């Protein structure tokens, strides 16, 4: 266990993902910019983790490394004990927006990753996830005819359809209006409770992190380090006006403030 992790995950649950002494330095125009510095994190199976930090701090970079899209400069990420080297359908990335394929219908998008399945099973899965994200009646609709929230639900459904162990969400609700965002958080929690995937959720929204996560990983400005890991010990559904919620939220506010010397 690293020092930055004050509360260890329950011992009975298997460890899913570990980040070990991870560092990233971007080289551009002969200058090297450190982006991530000695990141250590352990995530257990079925856990909901929020990576919280200011825009541009490198939390998306960390998520891209977990997905296998980027390689770290030093250190490594392991999933189920194996080092991550390339993208893999067992851990699916959900992009902030425009990640759905505009040339495919709702059905086509959800079925995109299911090309190895026999037809009957594929159609069954597509129907199942269309129901799960509430897109019934839109099977033949193209993404440009859907609202922003529907597109995001479609992308989550496409990710879930391949039955991954882990979802990596990069500010998935960042482009939505605040009301739709609240609804989508509820939907995501409902899906998470039904499917129990391990979720890593990147956000810069403190409320969002405290509403969703089992643990909030607070990151500093660039080069990002883990400032603190805050366990959110409020059962779902969370009362966002309860004293404990406000206490945790204000604690993180303060942490971020300290981190950036406001």
């Amino acid at each position: 266990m690293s020092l930055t992790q004050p509360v260890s995950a329950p011992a009975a649950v298997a460890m899913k993902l570990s980040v070990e002494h991870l560092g990233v330095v971007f080289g551009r125009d002969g200058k090297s910019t450190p982006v991530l510095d000695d990141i250590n994190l352990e995530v257990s199976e079925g856990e909901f983790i929020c990576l919280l930090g200011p825009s541009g701090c490198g939390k998306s970079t960390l998520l891209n490394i977990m997905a296998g899209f980027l390689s770290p400069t030093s250190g490594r990420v392991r999933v189920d004990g194996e080092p991550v080297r390339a993208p893999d359908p067992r851990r699916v990335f959900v992009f902030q927006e425009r990640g759905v394929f505009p040339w495919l219908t709702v059905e086509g998008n959800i079925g995109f990753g299911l090309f190895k399945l026999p037809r009957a099973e594929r159609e069954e899965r597509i129907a199942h996830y269309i129901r799960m994200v509430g897109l019934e009646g839109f099977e033949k609709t193209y993404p440009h005819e859907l609202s922003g929230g529907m597109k995001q639900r479609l992308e989550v459904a496409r990710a879930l359809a391949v039955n991954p162990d882990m979802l990596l969400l990069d500010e998935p609700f960042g482009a939505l209006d605040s009301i739709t965002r609240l609804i989508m958080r509820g939907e995501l929690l409902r899906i998470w409770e039904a499917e129990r995937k391990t979720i890593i959720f990147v956000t810069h929204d403190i409320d969002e992190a405290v509403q969703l996560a089992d643990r909030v990983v607070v990151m500093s400005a660039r080069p990002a380090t883990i400032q603190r890991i805050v366990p959110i010990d409020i059962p779902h559904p969370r009362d966002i006006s309860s004293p404990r919620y406000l206490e945790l939220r204000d604690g993180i506010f303060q942490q971020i403030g300290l981190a950036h010397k406001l």
Partner: protein
Amino acid sequence: MNSLSEPSRWERFVWPIAASATLLALWHYSVLWSGTKVFPSPYDVEKGMAELLKHHVLWGDIVDSLRRVGVGFGAAVMIGVPLGLVLGWYPAINQVVNPTMQILRPISPIAWIPVAIIFFGVGDRAAIFLIFLGAFFPIVVACINGVSNVPSVFRRAGRNFGLTPPQLLARVLLPAALPQILIGLRIALGIAWLVVVAAEMIAVDSGLGFLIIDSRNSGKRYDLVVAAILIIGFIGLVLDFGFRRLEKLRSVRWGFRSES
């Protein structure tokens, strides 16, 4: 095109027809007032067209021209699209090939006529080669741009679902680039239709281009010349219109909508 007041239904037909009628009238009276003996009036052209139809030469010429465009353009698509996709996908190869292509690209296919005749002799194949050249570069360039403009989000999503490189090309890059590729194909078809007329004036003895040059040479039949010109314009319009229908297909329509 953005105008505040949507034209009503009848306006959309009546004004364009009125414009054509005005032009015809202008043409008619210009011929009449100038007293020219060489240039035909619209009425002469109509008689010429009827004559061409009656002697059945017109259909043969139209079919020949369309066949040459079909073969030349078809070959340009079959070679240009895969080549453009590969070059778009591997920027390293593109960097090697690009300078050569940039030099060849702005050369009018007409400039190649002597070269085409050396290679293929006077005949069909020389004409088809010229059409191929005219259509090839716009197609390749559209495919390169189409593929390299595919957002990295789509490539990453494709890789995330475990696609092999050929699958990624077929299932992500090609459909994502298709709207841009279609625009390139439409431009290329337009160019092919321009080039066929020029090629037929030199290399062959059939087709609409030959009809023009032949009508002029054998008896200065300018009524037939103008009739052929109008037919060329009309067929070009039909080809373009047909291609535009493709852009309405549901799987590519997203690429032609204005940003919303």
